[in-house]
């Protein structure tokens, strides 16, 4: 432990601490504060419970102490709490985690309690990335020399032969000088040289010029993404940017620009130097506006929803009005509808699409990645989905560090927090619920990702861009979450037992009745989620039993449906609506 960490730890160990967790009886044991973790060990000989809590996952901490010297009784002491020691004071720390779990420690001794609380406060909000746990996490079974990340634009390009005649790899950003938040290499039209790219980049906010993110094999159409053009109040134009977009489609084709802002917002953006592609200069592109909420509005929506889920009131009207008021499901609805529109343009109508909003780092990525899930069977596999996240979120420069600094419980003043990534996971969950066989991964993976995006043992979600990751040598000094999840013994926890690949697009229903609260995430720490877990286990049991019975017949790769009556599969699918 370095000096810096130990400075923050005045009391490292406290005995006779009572821990209260959701759905468990209170436990008594020893609490220990380390540089990156809270460790609680139950004081019992056998089968004792241990809690290892990453300090980074603490979202908010509430402490209350009582100094009752001279009073023999402690009227506020809760059940299970019996004072030991003679200090005559005690304290309670409530920890609200970024994964929405809430735990409580009752600590004998006011001073100890305050010390522990201030350690948690300081160590859970370390500013420097390299002080964070991923830089210290060294599990025996992993080696730092293993590959970091799953794929690169080079590999993506190399694997898609049909891209080659019209698209090329550009290293114009090799020093991150053209665009701070892009990776070193990007895929762009062959007809556009690097000088033109650099000029186009200077016309886009943050230098995020239009790049390819998805190629639709069946008709050669593409999805591109960028940030807004900086047309400003006097309608500046940029020939290079126009050329770039023109080169992405044929003379005779029509492309669509899906702007994730309302038309009014796009107009107003001009006052701040931003803007939109004018029809006069981009003849072959048609612009559609689909307003998605972003930033603070989204963060507040999450906070309201989590607050509603934690409300113990038995009043149905109150719950429904809070659920509506949070608007979270409306945001899920808009995200899926807009992605559906993009997918429809590409698949049904055969048009290429450019997606952008303001910076092109949040709602843009939400829409492009959901559209790919709808369209692309490869992105629905376990590895493919992780690759999609790596490409569209990690490498594409979603600012995880700012967006996921705090979750729904934090009392800190909101800065740049925004649950865009959580919204993607929610929308993906809705897809999985509507198409129970189409995704190779299960809800458990989505929950794991939701947790790790906010606090992780791994380096994957650290930093906000490739440039930052390089500067801080993240890839050299941390382990990669995606690589870890793909290890055989891990992978098994996260796959969907019912998966069967399909080459077809999966068109989600976005009727409000078809979208549901993601109980697995938002009610994760309630009894309600427990019975769902049991059901999930049951599905595994059924699938495993079936595999057992199939094996003697010599079928190596059996699937549920092939050996089951039609009705049974139908019935199972019905049941899956709840999971």
């Amino acid at each position, binding site marked *: 432990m370095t000096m810096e960490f130990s400075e923050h730890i005045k009391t490292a160990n406290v005995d006779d601490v009572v821990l209260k967790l959701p759905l468990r009886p209170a436990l008594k044991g020893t609490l220990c504060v380390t540089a990156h973790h809270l460790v609680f060990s139950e004081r019992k000989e056998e089968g004792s419970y241990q809690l290892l809590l990453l300090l980074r996952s603490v979202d908010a901490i509430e402490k209350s102490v009582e100094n009752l010297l001279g009073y023999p009784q402690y009227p506020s002491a809760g059940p299970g709490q019996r004072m030991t020691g003679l200090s005559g004071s005690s304290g309670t720390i409530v920890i609200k985690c970024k994964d929405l779990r809430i735990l409580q420690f009752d600590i004998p001794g006011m001073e100890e309690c305050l010390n522990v609380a201030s350690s948690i406060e300081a160590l859970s909000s370390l500013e420097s990335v390299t002080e964070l746990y991923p830089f210290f996490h060294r599990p025996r079974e992993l080696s730092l020399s293993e590959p970091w990340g799953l794929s690169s634009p080079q590999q993506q390009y190399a694997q898609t032969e049909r891209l080659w005649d019209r698209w090329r790899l550009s290293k114009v950003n090799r020093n991150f000088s053209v665009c701070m938040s892009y990776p070193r290499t990007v895929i762009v039209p062959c007809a556009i040289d690097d000088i033109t790219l650099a000029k186009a980049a200077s016309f886009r906010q943050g230098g995020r010029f239009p790049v390819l993110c998805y190629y639709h094999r069946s008709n050669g159409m593409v999805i591109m993404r960028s940030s807004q053009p900086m047309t400003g109040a006097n309608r500046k134009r940029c020939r290079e940017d126009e050329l770039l977009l023109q080169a992405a489609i044929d003379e005779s084709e029509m492309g669509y620009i899906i702007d994730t802002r309302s038309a009014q917002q796009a107009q107003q953006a001009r006052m701040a130097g931003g803007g939109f592609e004018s029809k006069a200069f981009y003849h072959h592109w048609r612009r559609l506006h689909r307003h998605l909420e972003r930033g603070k509005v989204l963060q507040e929506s999450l906070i309201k929803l989590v607050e509603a889920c934690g409300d*113990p009131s038995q009043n149905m009207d109150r719950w429904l009005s809070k659920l509506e008021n949070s608007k979270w499901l409306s945001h899920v609805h808009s995200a899926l509808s807009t992605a559906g529109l993009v997918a429809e343009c590409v698949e049904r109508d055969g048009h290429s699409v450019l997606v952008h909003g303001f910076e092109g780092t949040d709602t843009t990525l939400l829409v492009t990645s959901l559209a790919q899930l709808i369209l692309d069977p490869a992105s629905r596999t376990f590895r493919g989905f992780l690759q999609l996240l790596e490409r569209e979120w990690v490498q594409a420069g979603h600012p995880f560090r700012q967006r996921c600094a705090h979750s729904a419980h934090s009392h800190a003043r909101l800065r740049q927090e925004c649950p865009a990534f959580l919204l993607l996971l929610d929308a993906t969950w809705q897809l999985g619920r509507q198409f129970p066989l189409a995704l190779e991964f299960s809800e458990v993976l989505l929950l794991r990702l939701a947790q790790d995006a906010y606090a992780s043992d791994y380096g994957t979600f650290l930093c906000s861009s490739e440039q930052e990751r390089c500067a801080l040598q993240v890839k050299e000094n941390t382990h990669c979450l995606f690589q870890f999840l793909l290890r055989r013994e891990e992978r098994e926890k996260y796959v969907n037992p019912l998966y069967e690949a399909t080459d077809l697009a999966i068109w*989600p229903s976005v009727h409000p009745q078809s979208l549901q609260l993601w109980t697995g995430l938002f009610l994760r720490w309630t009894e309600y989620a427990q*019975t769902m877990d049991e059901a999930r286990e049951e599905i595994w049991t059924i699938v495993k039993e079936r595999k057992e019975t199939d094996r003697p017949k010599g079928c190596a790769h059996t699937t549920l449906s092939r050996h089951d009556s039609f009705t049974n599969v*139908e019935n199972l699918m019905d049941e899956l609506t709840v999971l």
Partner: protein
Amino acid sequence: MDHIRTPKVENVRWLDRLTPRRIAVGTLYLSSTHTIFVENSDARKETWVLHSLVGSVERLAGTPAGCPLLVRCKNFQVFQLLLPQERDCADVYASLAHLSRPERYGDLYCFSFQPNLDKEERERAWNFLDLLADFSRMGIPSNLWHATPANHEYRVCDTYPSELFVPKSASPAVIVGSAKFRSRGRFPVLSYYHRDTSAAVCRSSQPLSGFSARSLEDEQMLQAIMKSNPASEYVYVVDTRPKLNAMANRAAGKGYESEDHYSNIRLHFVAIDNIHVMRSSQQKLADVGDLRSPSMGDFLWGLENSGWLKHIKAVLDAGVFIAKAVAEEGVSVLVHCSDGWDRTAQACSVASVLLDPYYRTLKGFMVLMEKDWVSFGHKFSHRYAHLDGDPREVSPVLDQFLECVWQLMEQFPCAFEFNERFLLQLHTHVHSCQYGNFIGNSQKERKELRIRERTHSVWHHLWENRVEFINPLYRVDHNQTQGVLRPVTTPYCFKFWKNMYSPVERGVAMRLSDCLNAVREESQQLEEELDAHQEVPRETDAEQGIHTPTKHACLETTLALYPHATVPSHTHKLGQPSNICPPFLKNPRVLKLVTPP
């Protein structure tokens, strides 16, 4: 066929309200029991609508394309017919309006429905369930409870079954005296006995206590119930009405038990609203399910505004209270409302489902329905408007029970042997009048109608088709299957029952039209391009699942393709009367059924 002036109309257009752009053209046939629509397409797809399932028919303003008829079914399906001729439309309207509201029991479909069963098989089907066997299954100790002959010939109470179980210590005089002191003579009797704790769930109607009246016999009856549970020192009296309503009843000489007069009782009110509140609440809910393209906000607001889930929660909470009293405190419970056939049936049956795993099996659930609802005189024909009658008697009482079970199934996916489809099917059959089980308002009435001789039993039919109704996640030895079910009833556990209230939504088509509508507003040109485009997919994806194969179809689509109605097993009997039997019986695969034949 006096009421069918036009038995066949050609070139009729069929529209689902939620997918207005998908129109099928075909021929409409009217039989005495069904409206049948046969598409002109090569597949000759057939849609059968049982007249007794038709809730309302509405003539809408004529359009150049034809005269529209809007038909709403009692199982919440909605469709629209577009008839070319005004005169045909008027005829069909008049026929449907008449056929969907029969005036006499004899006109109901069950009396003409003839599945392929001989007399012996029919009788065996009727004997499929045995209520007395269920009481012995409960393990009732014969020294504490016994069957009383008091109500043979329905002498004491004409809305109760003839076989009743009462505390052994209750003498005939106590029974008769208690019955006199209860609304409609519905004295306290055993509904469920919980072997593990020896506590019982009993049911009755409200006492005629007014402000001060009392009955020694009725007090003795409650005392007897308490004594039949040797370990306990009191009995809960659960009044399922809001306390204010119960108090208001006192002014009319009814009311609730006074704790001063009945020693050792504990009164508990659970505040389930009355049938009129429930009727209007469900109407509002159905309107929400009917919205064409609501925003998320519209939907959630409508859901809240209907108050429906609040009522469902109240019913479930009542069941939870009773189950806790019986299983955890070991205290017997007497449940009543006003007449003891609506809210009482709900509360008792929910409690039974929670208490006894047997009632969570397919057959056990049938037994429970037969016991707490059919035999105890839930007024099926009044509540579900089997005959043209007082609309104020109609109320979705059973719907709420089925929904409570559905909500439990959502919370405990492994706990029930049957699936959602079974509940939906049951709901349809309660309204369809195809089988005799739910005809009439009491056992006595069914006996007088000779239901067992003249109609068929639905339970046997459902049992024969059970493969469709089995929940694959159910396993006898699973922990959710064991013992008492303890649900969480925090509001967030309750969901909108989509497959009940929005049954015709097709995910794919819906989403498409949403997108297309929005696109159209912004770009006229795009619309034309898309119009040219959608001709092809729209025909295929929603209807034949070609766009997405069944297993990968969006669940919504799957449900549309395989509606909860069963594929007919007696198809050859469908076309009667034979004189207008349409020429498609060679094609028995009926893809879209509003009712199971």
